[in-house]
C-alpha cells in the first residue's frame, strides 16, 4: 500500500473538517431562528407545537424550532454552562431557583413590564414560583396540582361510600385496612393505598403534615417534628406490611403509561397524582372505570385544609441566549389568554391565568378540572422550596425515604443524616450568594 504523502493527509483532514466549521453570519434583516427545547413528547408536545406553528404563521420575523429533549435538566445545564444554550427552554418549576442563582437565566423583569405582564394576571402561586431573589426568571406554561384519586368501584365493593374520600391520614389508613387484600401464601394481592404509587414526590410528604423543608431564612428543617411525623407514617408501611411483601408487590407494577398501571388493574385503590392523570385514565383505563378526585388527606384536616403540591412547566431564556428580545416575543405570545388556553387544553391541564374563559371549562374533558384549579388557588397550595441546593436536597430526601421504606434506617437517623449534610451544603451556598450578590444583582438590574 502506497503511504499517502503528509500533504495529502492534511488536505483530506481539512476537507473533512469543513462540516465542523461555523456557518457564516446571516445577512441583516433575515428571519431570526430560535431554538426552543422542551421536555414533552407525544400529544403534550403536539399541543405546544400547535402554538409554535401559530406563532410562526402569525409573523415572518421570527421562526421557532421546537425540539423534544429528554433529561432536559441535565442537558440544559450542560448547554448553558458550555455557552451554547437554546434561545428558549421549558423547565420544571423546581429547577428555577437553582438555575437563577447560578446565573444561568436571563431576568425577565424589564421585558415583562414592557409587555404589561403582571402578577395580578396569574394564579398567585405560579407567579411566586417564577420569582427568586427579587427578580422574575420565567413565565408559566402549563401548571399542575396534585390530588387524591380513588377507584369508586373498589370503594363500593369494600362497603365504603364511593363519594366520601378519606380526609385525614388516620381515615386514609382506616380505608387502607379495608381495601387491602392478602393472598393465602402471605403476599399482598391488592392495597388500598401505597405511598410508592406513583412515588414521584418522596421528598415532600411533609407538606401534608404541616411541614416545610426550610424555615425561609437560614435553616433547613428536614428533621422538624412534622417531617418526622410524615416519615414515621411512611415507616409504618414496612412495619405493618413487611419490607419484602411491599417490594414484591411493587415489582409487579406494570408500566404506568399502559393498561397495566396498577391503579387501573385494581391492584391499588387510591393514589396521589397530578392533573395529567386524566390522560392516563382516558388512554389506558378500562371503559367502565369510575374515579374521583379530592384534596389529599392531611394529618389534621381542620387545621390543614386543601393542601396540594403545585408544580408547573415554565418558559425561560437561558443566559447567553443571543436573541432574548425575540425569545421573549415568543414567550409573550404563549402567555396570552387565547394561546395559553389552547396549550393547556391540548395538554388537558388547567390554565395558570386567573382569567379563564367559560368555553375552556366547557370544552375541557377532565370532569374534575375545577377541583384541580381550586387546589392551585387554595391558601395551602405548596411547592418545592426555592433553594439553590434543591437538586441535592431532594436527591438526599428521596434517598432517605427509600432507606426508610426498605427498612435500612429508621426515621430519626435518616432525617438527621439529611439535615446535617444538606444544612452544611446550604450554608456553603448562602456564603456563595453573600459573596456574589452585589455583583450579580447589579448585573441582573441592568439586563
Amino acid at each position, binding site marked *: 500500500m502506497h503511504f499517502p504523502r503528509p500533504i495529502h*493527509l492534511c488536505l483530506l483532514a481539512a476537507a473533512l473538517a469543513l462540516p465542523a466549521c461555523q456557518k457564516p453570519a446571516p445577512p441583516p434583516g433575515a428571519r431570526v431562528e430560535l431554538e426552543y427545547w422542551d421536555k414533552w413528547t407525544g400529544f403534550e408536545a403536539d399541543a405546544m407545537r400547535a402554538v409554535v406553528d401559530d406563532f410562526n404563521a402569525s409573523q415572518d420575523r421570527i421562526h421557532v424550532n421546537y425540539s423534544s429533549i429528554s433529561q432536559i435538566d441535565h442537558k440544559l445545564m450542560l448547554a448553558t454552562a458550555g*455557552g451554547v444554550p437554546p434561545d428558549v427552554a421549558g423547565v420544571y418549576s423546581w429547577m428555577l431557583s437553582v438555575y437563577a442563582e447560578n446565573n444561568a437565566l436571563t431576568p425577565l423583569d424589564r421585558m415583562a413590564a414592557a409587555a404589561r405582564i403582571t402578577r395580578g394576571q396569574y394564579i398567585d402561586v405560579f407567579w411566586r414560583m417564577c420569582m427568586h431573589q427579587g427578580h422574575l426568571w420565567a413565565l408559566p406554561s402549563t401548571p399542575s396540582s396534585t390530588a387524591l384519586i380513588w377507584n369508586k368501584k373498589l370503594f363500593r365493593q369494600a362497603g365504603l361510600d364511593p363519594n366520601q374520600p378519606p380526609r385525614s391520614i388516620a381515615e386514609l389508613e382506616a380505608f387502607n385496612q379495608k381495601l387491602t387484600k392478602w393472598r393465602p401464601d402471605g403476599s399482598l394481592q391488592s392495597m388500598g393505598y401505597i405511598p410508592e404509587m406513583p412515588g414521584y414526590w418522596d421528598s415532600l410528604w411533609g407538606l401534608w403534615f404541616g411541614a416545610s423543608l426550610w424555615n425561609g431564612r437560614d435553616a433547613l428543617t428536614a428533621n422538624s417534628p412534622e417531617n418526622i411525623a410524615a416519615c414515621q407514617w411512611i415507616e409504618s408501611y414496612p412495619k405493618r406490611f413487611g419490607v419484602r411483601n411491599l417490594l414484591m408487590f411493587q415489582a409487579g407494577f406494570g408500566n404506568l*403509561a399502559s393498561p397495566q398501571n396498577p391503579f387501573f388493574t385494581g391492584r391499588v385503590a387510591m393514589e396521589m397524582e397530578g392533573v395529567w392523570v386524566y390522560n392516563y385514565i382516558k388512554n389506558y383505563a378500562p371503559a367502565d372505570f369510575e374515579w374521583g378526585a379530592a384534596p389529599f388527606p392531611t394529618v389534621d384536616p381542620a387545621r390543614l385544609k386543601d393542601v396540594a403540591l403545585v408544580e408547573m412547566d415554565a418558559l425561560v431564556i437561558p443566559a447567553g441566549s443571543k436573541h432574548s428580545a425575540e425569545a421573549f416575543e415568543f414567550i409573550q405570545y404563549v402567555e396570552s389568554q387565547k394561546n395559553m388556553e389552547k396549550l393547556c387544553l391540548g395538554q388537558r391541564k388547567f390554565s395558570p391565568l386567573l382569567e379563564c374563559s367559560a368555553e375552556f371549562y366547557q370544552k375541557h374533558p377532565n370532569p374534575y378540572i375545577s377541583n384541580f384549579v381550586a387546589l392551585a388557588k387554595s391558601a395551602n397550595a405548596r411547592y418545592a422550596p426555592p433553594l439553590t441546593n434543591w437538586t441535592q436536597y431532594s436527591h438526599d430526601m428521596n434517598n432517605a425515604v427509600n432507606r426508610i421504606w426498605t427498612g435500612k434506617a429508621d426515621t430519626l437517623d435518616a432525617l438527621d443524616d439529611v439535615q446535617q449534610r444538606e444544612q452544611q451544603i446550604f450554608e456553603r451556598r448562602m456564603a456563595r450568594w453573600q459573596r456574589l450578590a452585589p455583583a450579580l444583582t447589579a448585573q441582573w438590574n441592568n439586563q
Partner: protein
Amino acid sequence: MDTRQHNRLLQPLVLVILIVAGVAFLAPFAWMLSTSLKPLNETMSLPVRWIPSVPQWHNYPEAIHGMGYFWRYAANTLFLCVMNVVGTVASSALAAYGFSRIEWKGRDKLFLVLLATMMIPFPVIMVPVYSLFRHLGWIGTFRPLWVPSFFAGAFNVFLLRQFFLGLPKDISEAARIDGCSEFQIFLRIILPLCKPALLVVALFQFMFTWNDFLGPLIYLARQKNFTLALGLENFQSQNGGTEWHYLMAASTMVVLPVIVLFFFTQRTFIQGIAATGSKN
C-alpha cells in the same frame, strides 16, 4: 504419569473449558440478538425463551425511526472516527519516531514524563479542559472531540515506540550517510515498515472513538450533532418503560460495524500487537 501422557489429558480438558467459557462469552450477544427480534410482550415474558415466536425484523427500522437522527448520528460518528484515526496515526508516529530513532539529550527523561501522564485520570482534567474549550467557543462543536487527537496520546506513542525500537539501527544509519534528512528517513524508510503497528493504532483509535461516550456527553449540545453512543443513551432514557426490543436492535446496529471491521483486519491486528509487545 509422564509429561506426555499428562499433556494428552490436558488438551481435551482445556478444549472443554474453552468451549464452556466461549459459550458463556457469546451468550450475551445471542441474547441481544434474540431480544431485538422479539415483540415487546415476549421480552417481558417468563420463562425466558431464546427463539422469538415470530422474528420481528421490523424492530430494526422502527428502532432507527425511534432514535430520531440515526443516520446523522452514524455520519457524525464516522466523521469523528476518521479524523481521530488520521490525527492519532500521524502525530503518534511522529512523536514515537522522535522518542526512538533519534538520539538526543534528555530524550529518555522526557519519555518517562510521557509514561507518567498515562496515570492522569480523565476526570481530573475534565473540568479545566471543558473550561478551556468553553473559552475557545468550541463547546457544542465537534472540535473538542477530534483536535486533541492531533497531539499524540501517550499510549499510542508508547506502543509505536516499542515497535520502532525493534527495527534495526543500520537502515537509518545507511540513509543518514546517504544524506537523507530525518524526516525523509521517517517517511520513506521507517513508516512503510510499520504497517501492522500503524494498523493497530488506527484500529484501537477507531474503536475508542466509535465507543466514546463521556466526551460527546459533555461537549455536544445539539441533538443532531450527537454520536451513535450518545444517541443510544438518549434513546434509553426516554420516558415511559424501556422498550428493550428496540434498544437491543439499536445496540446490535451500533456494535455491528466494529465487529465487521475487526473480522476483516484481525490477522494484521494480532500480528501488530505481538510485534509491539515483543520488546519491553
